[in-house]
């Protein structure tokens, strides 16, 4: 082994020793400062500000840094060689010289620089580690004496928090410094967490919760039910996160502490069908539909599939069959995609059949689930032969009978024949024939009237008396404007015919025939949602009917009462001067608000926290009041029968 190799080995020994010593001094610093803080908290009796909880960490860094600075000679071999020379002066700088890489190797110099690395480092390293170990023991003893085993363990785990210091300030108070350990349900694959001195515990429904604290004599109430408390050096109570918010009340003598149990629901998967993008009506069945969906889940997706339903039938008889394709397991992934194809030809779709496609996903929730998420449904419909020009065949206007057009043409022919024969006819004969044409024209006009104004049907011959209504489309489907024109022209024609002026009537009759023809040939588009409006003549019904009773006025809603109660309880709780009592009362208000007014519940959390931690609660109080005012405004703006 050359001199340089021996120096290198010595450097490795020193590095290990310095690292161990630095770690030991860091531990000692954490314990010492933690113990000092606990002592200070006890002396002041009211805990310490939040910034003090950072001190142990800072002290650990400083202590470790100081040790490295003082004990580590440096990384270069020359500096380590100098450190060896310092501890073994008999080398007389031969080692430093032999370590110089620029000099040629010399057997004589190697012999002069010979030393045993283990022997050189033994004493200084032992001293360094002994001192560090003593520091750990002393500071640990101080920490144990002041904070106990668990307190010392918390210090080492970096949990010297404001709450633990507050607990240290009140060592005999079992309602301070307790700890809640939350174990989420196994299916969630989440890790257990601990929280000290919580005002509220938010966790998945079904999570196991263990609350434990120092001392004894604590009674724990879950809502109104008393829970069994396991006693020992620490009191412990175990429970499961319920489905609804509940107040967990810790009582010790006359004092109490309210913790809000805030269940977090495992939401069902959110499923979005990305393809097909829209509903479709098909004239011919064929091709392949590509179906794709994306899934998102807050905890984890178990499985997903594409489901399609084929329904066929009409009127009152429908049959349906459902099939599942593209099934996929996701094994707890937070996101996933589904994709498959459906061959339309293989489904043997017939006219009028409906194909409804959607994506379905399940989460792994074994506590309250599984939660099932379903996408929107896309529908493929096969059009019937008789509806190619329309979306639906229901609720349309009556069809214009071909006979109407034919009849109008016949009347024109009769009028033209009369005009041709008029010079050779007697006056009475002309009058008889023209009045016959007029009567038929009026009858034809009434048939058109019944189509144009269906809500104003009348006895034959009443047209003149009744006239047409002002709103032609009231209560009915849209009417072809050509039909209205025909009606108007027929009106003029019949007027002329009634005064036996067939020549004057003919232009109107021809115009009516043209308009009827246009109306007959017009395309018919009937949009859905135009269901017939049947008007009930309420006064007539009332006159014929009997008054057998009256409905009671709508009674106030329970939730409205609940909102007012929350507002009243909030005002009372906020007015309490003692911050601890106020925080307890506000926690009870929050339990109720979580179900009724979630926005207020969210605003109450920082307020309760501020009161418990001794911070200025005014900003949080103003925010909570603002949320309550908004709920009031929403209640005022609701419909007259509405809850809110």
């Amino acid at each position, binding site marked *: 082994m050359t001199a340089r190799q021996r120096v290198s080995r010595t450097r490795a020994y020193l590095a290990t020793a310095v690292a161990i010593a630095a770690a030991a001094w860091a531990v000692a610093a954490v314990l010492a400062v933690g113990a000092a803080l606990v002592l200070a908290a006890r002396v002041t009796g009211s805990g310490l500000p939040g910034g003090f909880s950072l001190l142990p960490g800072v002290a650990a860094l400083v202590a470790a840094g100081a040790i490295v600075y003082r004990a580590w000679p440096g990384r270069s071999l020359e500096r380590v060689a100098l450190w060896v020379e310092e501890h073994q002066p008999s080398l007389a700088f031969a080692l430093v010289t032999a370590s110089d890489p620029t000099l040629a190797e010399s057997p004589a110099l190697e012999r002069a620089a010979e030393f045993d690395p283990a022997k050189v480092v033994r004493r200084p390293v032992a001293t360094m580690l002994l001192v560090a170990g003593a520091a750990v023991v002393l500071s640990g003893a101080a920490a144990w004496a002041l904070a106990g085993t668990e307190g010392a363990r918390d210090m080492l785990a970096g949990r010297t928090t404001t709450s633990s210091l507050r607990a240290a300030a009140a060592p005999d108070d079992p309602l301070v410094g307790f700890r809640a350990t939350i174990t989420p349900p196994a299916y969630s694959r989440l890790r257990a967490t601990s929280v000290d001195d919580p005002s509220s515990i938010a966790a998945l429904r079904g999570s196991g919760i263990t609350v434990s604290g120092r001392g004894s004599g604590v009674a724990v109430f879950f809502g109104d039910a008393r829970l069994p408390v396991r006693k020992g050096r620490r009191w412990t109570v175990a429970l499961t996160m319920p489905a609804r918010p509940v107040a967990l009340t810790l009582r010790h003598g006359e004092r109490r502490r309210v913790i809000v149990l805030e269940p977090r629901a495992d939401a069902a998967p959110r499923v979005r069908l990305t393809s097909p993008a829209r509903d479709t009506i098909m004239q011919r069945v064929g091709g392949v539909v590509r179906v794709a969906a994306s899934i998102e889940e807050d905890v984890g997706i178990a499985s997903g599939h594409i489901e399609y*339903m084929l*329904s066929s*039938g009409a009127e*009152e008889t*429908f*049959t*349906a069959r459902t099939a599942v394709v593209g099934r996929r397991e996701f094994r707890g992934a937070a996101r996933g995609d589904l994709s498959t194809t459906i061959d339309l030809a293989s489904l043997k779709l017939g006219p009028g059949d*409906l194909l*409804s496609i*959607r994506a379905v996903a399940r989460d792994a929730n074994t506590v309250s689930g599984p939660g*099932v998420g*379903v996408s*929107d*449904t896309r*529908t493929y419909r096969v059009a019937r032969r008789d509806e190619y020009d329309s979306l639906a065949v*229901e*609720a349309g206007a009556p069809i214009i009978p071909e006979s109407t057009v034919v009849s109008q043409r016949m009347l024109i022919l009769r009028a033209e024949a009369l005009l041709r024969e008029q010079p050779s006819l007697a006056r009475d004969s002309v009058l008889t024939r023209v009045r016959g044409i007029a009567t038929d024209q009026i009858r034809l006009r009434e048939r058109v009237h019944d189509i144009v104004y269906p809500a104003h049907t009348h006895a034959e011959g009443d047209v003149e008396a009744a006239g047409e209504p002002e709103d032609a489309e009231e*209560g009915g489907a849209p009417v072809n404007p050509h039909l209205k024109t025909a009606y108007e022209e027929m009106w003029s024609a019949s007027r002329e015919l009634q005064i036996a002026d067939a020549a004057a009537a003919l232009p109107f009759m021809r115009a009516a025939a043209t308009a009827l023809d246009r109306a007959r040939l017009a395309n018919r588009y009937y949009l*859905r*949602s135009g*269901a*017939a*409006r*049947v*008007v*009930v*003549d*309420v006064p007539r*019904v*009332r006159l*014929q*009917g*009997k*008054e*057998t*009773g*009256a*409905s*009671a*006025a*709508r*009674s106030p*809603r*329970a*939730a409205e009462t609940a909102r007012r109660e929350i507002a009243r309880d909030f005002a009372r709780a906020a007015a309490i001067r003692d911050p601890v009592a106020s925080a307890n009362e506000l926690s009870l208000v929050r339990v109720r608000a979580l179900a009724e007014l979630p926005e207020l519940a969210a605003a109450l959390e920082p307020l309760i926290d501020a009161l418990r931690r001794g911070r200025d609660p005014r900003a949080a109080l103003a925010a909570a009041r603002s949320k309550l005012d908004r709920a009031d405004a929403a209640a005022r703006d*609701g*419909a*007259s*029968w*509405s*809850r*809110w």
Partner: protein
Amino acid sequence: MSQFVFCTGQYASGDWESAPLVAPNLIDSVARYTSIDVASTGVTVPLDSPRLFEHPLVYLTGHLPFRLTEAERANVRAFTGRGGMIFIDDHNHDVGGIFHRTATEEIARTWSPLRQLPNTHRLYSAFFEFDDGPPTTSHELNGWGDNLVHPHLSAVVRDGRIVVLYSNKDYSSEWSYHPDNKRFSSVDNTKLGVNIIVYALTS
């Protein structure tokens, strides 16, 4: 108290407009038997429309798949949360039918699974007295649909109040005739409809 307007709900899937005469028939019955100030025509409101909140009761029916979009689902949830009531009738009268299967699934997803409504429920005495629960329809008696007589209605109840009333009895067929033809019936079969409306207005 504002005028009661009978509201038929329009949903994106299915044939929501399959019983157009139910609305005028029930309006006629409400006018005939009660002093409720009722509008002479009903309205049709899309389920995802904020106009839904103008009505205390929404009537839904159909034969085809009953599936709500996310917007419709959120809106009807808010609607029932604010005190509204939804009456859903299976126009197929068929427990194995497509409407029943999809509607019960959609109800469970939107609110919670349906529970059988006891025949002593206040609904059956809200105006007329129905000692034996919901009246049997002619469609049940003539073997139409699933060939069953359903002795109960189902409901989703929140805080003691029916938020969703569900019927397999096909009242949509039973009540879908012109109100003027009511005079030919010895017994008015729409009386349960009056109870549903009065219940929705007073509970």
